[in-house]
């Protein structure tokens, strides 16, 4: 069973988002996603200041078996990236919701966050996938 913290929002593609006090959102991949990928050996984070629209492939996680895109969950500008992942991609496996965060965005329109899933809805989404 994978961990799904209550205080986060989730996408169909298994990204999680955390709304920060300054209005930015922190983005990472869910516990389910890191388990499915297996041990990570490389994370390509986006460039600071880069702008993306929703659904753009903006980062890449490579595991021992395959590469997988991280899609930008909401339109916005990259305001921070987790530089620790360059040397320790395995942080995503060990701590997907804390030390393994990938990047932070300043969203263009914070109201679009309302369209994302809460923990309960994401839990149902995962259950449906396993059926």
């Amino acid at each position: 069973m994978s961990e799904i913290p209550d205080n986060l929002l989730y996408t169909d593609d298994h990204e999680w988002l955390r709304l920060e006090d300054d209005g930015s959102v922190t983005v990472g991949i869910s516990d389910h996603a890191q388990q499915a990928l297996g041990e990570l050996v490389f994370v390509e984070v986006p460039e600071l200041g880069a702008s993306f629209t929703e659904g753009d492939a903006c980062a890449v996680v490579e595991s021992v078996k395959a590469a997988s895109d991280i899609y930008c969950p909401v339109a916005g500008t990259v305001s921070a990236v987790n530089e620790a992942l360059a040397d320790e991609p395995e942080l995503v496996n060990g701590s997907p919701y804390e030390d393994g965060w990938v990047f932070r965005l300043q969203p263009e329109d914070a109201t679009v966050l309302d369209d994302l899933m809460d923990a309960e809805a994401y839990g149902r989404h995962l259950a449906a996938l396993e059926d």
Partner: protein
Amino acid sequence: MGKQTGLYARHRAAGAKLVDFGGWDMPLHYGSQIDEHHAVRQRAGVFDVSHMTVVDISGAGSRAWLRYLLANDVDRLQSQGKGLYSCMLNPAGGVVDDLIVYWQGDEDYRMVVNAATRDADLQWMESSVKDYTVNLRERADLAMLAVQGPQAREAAAAFLPGEIGDAALALGAFESLERDGIFIARTGYTGEDGWEILLEQSAAERMWDQLLQAGVQPCGLGARDTLRLEAGLNLYGQDMTMNTSPLESNLGWTIAWDPADRDFIGRFALAEQRASGVGRQLKGLLLDGRGVMRAGQAVRTNSGEGQITSGGFSPTMQRSIALARLPADAAGHCEVQIRDKFVPAHIVKVPFVRNGQIKTDIHKPIE
């Protein structure tokens, strides 16, 4: 659900993540394939490779048939128990499979071929055996354990009856012995020292338990793949196929051209290819920077284009390595297409790693 080896319940109990491999449910890893990889390079690991196909060959025509079937020559086996790596070719010189054949005295041989190619191999052998007095007997009753790593032989010897253990420790590379139903060969697919052991099911279960209790790391197919890639060992179906010859697969050394009058399947096509020049060759690639090369990616060299056949992340070198089929004279710098970018890499000699040591010159560290 796929076929299961006799150790399946033990894999489940050890927390293995199981995957389909050639119709078998096999362990991919037992938690961390990277830890398993390091265990084999530094200490000892054990792999259940019971899915591999073992065929015992006997009958008055065995030797003559194998000299016709295989590109390497079993006449090179001059002492009993000695093993030989060879490809089995089709008439066009393409690789039907790669295998190890052991001479067990007189007209008796034992062959170990890949699991995923079992049906095609057996069919191929049956179709070529007609004119020879040969009996083929598949040994699906035997389990197979590969114990690999610098401490593997010592660790496993402790659980063999004393006299067998001592004899096994005296084996040279590619030598084997068989005693009391246990077959031990000093071979492997990891680039480390070790044994491949064939034994009956209950004995395999006992030995597996004893090895794990002694701290030998159980290892899955994930680590097996990164270990063999670091060792520059080809994977059938990926680095060589029905459509590539040994000459194009870094395996020219496995073709026994002499004696010139030995007729083996594929010889004519291989000789033609050798005479007209081999256009493509399998070579090693080392990625200059961060990222991971994967099978199927395109490679641009000064001599033309090629393609990666196996790629991944090397836990020992902490960077990406690959095998690629490239223009034969390609050398030095090249570029690999990873998604939409061309990323710099270097063409290098394989193996990348042998016996725990990095063999490839790394000109510059990753920034």
